[in-house]
C-alpha cells in the first residue's frame, strides 16, 4: 500500500491521472493568482506605507480597462475549468457498454457486494485490472457513499433508487474504500478494501469463492418464490405486463407518459408499484417494500434484464417491447 506519510494519493484507475491533471491545472492557475495578489498587497503596504500622520493616498478612482481585464481573464479561465471538469464528469458518469457488473449495497455500517457469478463479499471488493467495472449501488437504510480515492471515483448510495459508477483499475493492489456520506454511529468504520488483481488471479479468486447461485439464478428463484410469475407470465395472458424484453424499452404509461424501463424503473415498479401504471393494466400489484431486500432486488433486476423479447412482439396489451436492451 502506501508509505506512512503520503502527500499525494496513488493513481490506480484509468481516469485517475486525468483527474490529477485537471487538479494540477487549477492548482497552477490558483497559485499564480494567490501569489500575484498577496505579493501585490504586501508590496504596496510596504512601498506606500504612511510617512506623515496627515498623509493621504493618491487621487485614483478606478479604471474601466483594468476592471475589464480582471473580469474577462478570470472568466475565461473559469470557463476552461468548467468545460474540462464537465468533460471528465461525463466520462465518469457514463459506464462503457462492455462493463462487467457488480452489485453493491450499503447498509449501516457495511458494504455488501454481489458478483454476477454469485460470489458475495462484505467490505471487500475484488476486481480484475484493465476491465471496465460498473457498480450498481443501492442502500438499505440511509445515505451512504462508495468512495475509492485511488480510483478518484465516488457515488452516493441513495435509499429508494439505484445509482451507478464505474472504473477501470490499472494497477494491481489494495486500496481504501470509504463511506463518504455521513451515515451515523459507525460512519468511519464503514470502510473496506478494493483488491485489484491480474485477470487470472481474479478468475482463480472467483472460482474459489463459495456461491449460492448466480445473481440471475437467484433472481429467477425469487421470481417464482414471490409469485411474480403468477401475473407476469411468459405470454401476454397475465394480469401484469409481459416482462420479456421490457428492460431498455420505452413503456407507455396510463397517464400518457412514456418512460424508459431502466434499473430504477424496475426497482420502483417492485417497491412502489402504484407510482407508474402501464397502459392497459390495473393498479393491483402490491408493494414488495419490506419483503424484498436491496440485494434481492438487484437479483430480481438481474433476472428481468435477461428476459429477451420473443421473436415476434405481440401487438396488443403488452408494452412496446421493440427496443433492444440499450445503454440506459
Amino acid at each position, binding site marked *: 500500500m502506501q508509505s506512512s506519510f503520503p502527500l499525494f494519493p496513488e493513481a490506480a484507475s484509468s481516469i485517475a491521472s486525468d483527474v490529477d491533471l485537471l487538479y494540477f491545472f487549477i492548482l497552477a492557475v490558483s497559485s499564480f493568482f494567490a501569489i500575484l*495578489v498577496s505579493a501585490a498587497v504586501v508590496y504596496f503596504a510596504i512601498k506606500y506605507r504612511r510617512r506623515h500622520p496627515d498623509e493621504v493616498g493618491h487621487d485614483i478612482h478606478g479604471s474601466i480597462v483594468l476592471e475589464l481585464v480582471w473580469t474577462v481573464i478570470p472568466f475565461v479561465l473559469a470557463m476552461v475549468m468548467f468545460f474540462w471538469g464537465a468533460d471528465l464528469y461525463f466520462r465518469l458518469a457514463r459506464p462503457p457498454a462492455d462493463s462487467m457488473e457488480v452489485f453493491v449495497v450499503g447498509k449501516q455500517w457495511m458494504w455488501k457486494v454481489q458478483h454476477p457469478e454469485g460470489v458475495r463479499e462484505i467490505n471487500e471488493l475484488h476486481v480484475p485490472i484493465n476491465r471496465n467495472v460498473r457498480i450498481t449501488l443501492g442502500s438499505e437504510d440511509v445515505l451512504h457513499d462508495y468512495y475509492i480515492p485511488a480510483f478518484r471515483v465516488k457515488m452516493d448510495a441513495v435509499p429508494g433508487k439505484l445509482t451507478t459508477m464505474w472504473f477501470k483499475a490499472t494497477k494491481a493492489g489494495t486500496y481504501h474504500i470509504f463511506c463518504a456520506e455521513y451515515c451515523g454511529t459507525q460512519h468511519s468504520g464503514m470502510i473496506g478494501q478494493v483488491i485489484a488483481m491480474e485477470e487470472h488471479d481474479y478468475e482463480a479468486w472467483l472460482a474459489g469463492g463459495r456461491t449460492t447461485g448466480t445473481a440471475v439464478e437467484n433472481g429467477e428463484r425469487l421470481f417464482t418464490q414471490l409469485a411474480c410469475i403468477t401475473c407476469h407470465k411468459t405470454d401476454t395472458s397475465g394480469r401484469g405486463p409481459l416482462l420479456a424484453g421490457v428492460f431498455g424499452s420505452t413503456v407507455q404509461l396510463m397517464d400518457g407518459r412514456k418512460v424508459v424501463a431502466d434499473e430504477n424503473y424496475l426497482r420502483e415498479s417492485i417497491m412502489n408499484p402504484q407510482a407508474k401504471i402501464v397502459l392497459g393494466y390495473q393498479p393491483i400489484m402490491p408493494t414488495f417494500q419490506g419483503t424484498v431486500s436491496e440485494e434481492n432486488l438487484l437479483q430480481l433486476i438481474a433476472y428481468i434484464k435477461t428476459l429477451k423479447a420473443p421473436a415476434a412482439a405481440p401487438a396488443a396489451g403488452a408494452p412496446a417491447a421493440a427496443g433492444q436492451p440499450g445503454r440506459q
Partner: protein
Amino acid sequence: MTHAGNNSGSYLDAPHGIASWLLTKDHKRIAILYLISITVFFMIGGLFAAGIRAELLTPAGDLFTADLYNKVFTLHGVVMIFFFLIPSIPATLGNFLVPIMCGAKDLAFPRINLLSWYLYLIGAMLTLGAVFMGGVDTGWTFYTPYSSMASNTNVTLAALGVFIAGFSSILTGFNFIVTVHRMRAPGLTWFRMPLFLWAMYATSLVMILGTPVVAITILLVGAERALGFAIFDPRVGGDPVLFQHLFWFYSHPAVYIMILPGMGVISELVAAVSRKQIFGYSVVAYSSLAIAIIGFLVWGHHMFVSSQSIYAGLVFSIITMIVAVPSAVKTFNWAATMYKGSITWESPTYWVIGFIGLFLVGGLTGLFLGAMGLDVHLHDTYFVVAHFHYIMVGGGVMGFLGGIHFWWPKMTGRTYPETAGKIAAILVFVGFNLTFFPQFVVGYLGMPRRYHAYPEEFQILNVMSTGGATVLGIGYLLIVTYLVASLFKPRNASANPWGATGLEWDIPSPPITLNFETEPIVTEDAYNYIGRAQKAREN
C-alpha cells in the same frame, strides 16, 4: 465635527440598569447584546472544535465514543453557523453601523430589532437545551433520511432552535433593507453609500429570500419525524435527495450571508488604512449584488454525486464558475486600492492583509470543487472542510475581527493595546493556516469528513492541524482578553482615531443615543480622503 474626550451623554451612559439594556430599542445597545451573545456561542463552538481536534490527534477513535464524536462535530457546525457566523457581522457591526452610516437615529423598526435578538436567544437556548438533553448527531446539514428516520437524538429540538433563530435573521435583513431604502440622510445617494452598506443590503436580500426556505425544510423534517409525513422517506415514495435541494437552496446562499459582510468590512478597512478612495467603487458595490443574486443559482454544486441529473449538474457547475468572477474582481479592486495609498501599519492593516490572503485561498479552492470531474474525488473529503473554513473563518471571522478592531474605539470609547492587536492578528493568521492548509492535502489523499477514526497514514497531517488549532485558539483568547480588559480602563478613544472618513467618525466615541445632534447632510462621495485633506489645508 464634534471632538469628544469623555462625553457623558453617550449611549453607554444613558439610562443604567439591566432592564434598560434588556428592553432597549437603541440599535447600538442591541448590537452590544448581540456581540456578547455571539461571543459566548463562538466560545461554545470553539470548545467543540477543540474536542474534534483532540480526537483526531490519533488515528484510533480513543477520546470519545463514535456517538459522542458525531454529536461534537454536529454541534460545532450548528453553533458556529447558525448562532455565530450568520448573525456575526450583520447583527453586531451591522446593527451598530447601518443607521449611523445612513445618517439616521436608529433602524427603521427598533422594536423589531429587539425582537430579533430575543428570537435569536430563544433559538439558541432551545439548541443548547438539545445539547444538555444528550445532543444531536445528524451533522449541521440534517440530511434525510438519517435525520428524519434513523437518528434517535434530539433532532427536533435542535432543528426548532435553528428554525426560530432563522426568524431573527429574516427580521434583521428586513430592518436593514427598509432602513437603507427609507432613512438615508439628505444627499446620501446610493452611490455615495459606504460599501459596508452595500454589502449589508446585499446580505439582507439573501437573508429574507433564503431563510424562509430553510425554515420550511426544517419544518418538513420535524413533521416527518413527529407525524410521519412522507416527504423524504423513500419507502413511501418520498425523495431523500429533495431535502438536499431544499437545504442547499438556503445553505449555499447562507455562505454569502457569512462572507458578504466580511467583504463589506474589508472594503471599509482597505480604504481607511490606505486613506484612499476605493478602487472601482461601483464595481465593488455591484459585485456584492451580483454575488447575492447569482449565489441563489448554484446550490446543486453540493450534489454532483448525489444522483442529481448530470445535466442539472452541468448548469450548476457553470454558474458556480461564474459566481467566482465577482469575488475575484473584488479582490483585485482591494489590492488596487492599496496602490499609491498612504498605508498605516496599525492593527487593522494586519487584519486586512490576513483576510485577503485567506480569502484568496478559500475562493480559489472553490474552483477545484466547482469543476465537476474533480469534485467527484474531492466531495465530502477534508478538502471541502479546508475550503469552507478558509471562506467562513479565513474570510468571515477575519472580517469580523478586523471590523471589531477597527470600530472598537467607536463602539466602546476605548482603545486596546496596539501591539497585542498585531500579535493576535499574526497568531490567528499563522494558526489558521497551520490548522487548515494540511487539510487540503489530507483531503486530496481521500480522508472523508466526519470521520471519528482514520487510517494511520493520515496522522501527521492531522497532528499539524491540531497543533495549528492550538495556536489559533490562543490567538482568539488573547483577543477576548485585551478587548475585555480595555473595558475596565477609562474612555480614551478620540472621535476619529484612524483618521478615517465616514459619518460614524464624525460623531463622538461612543456616540450619543440618537447618534447625531443634528441630521447630517452628505455632500461628497464615500472615502473622499483627498477632499478632506484639501479642506484641512484650507483651514
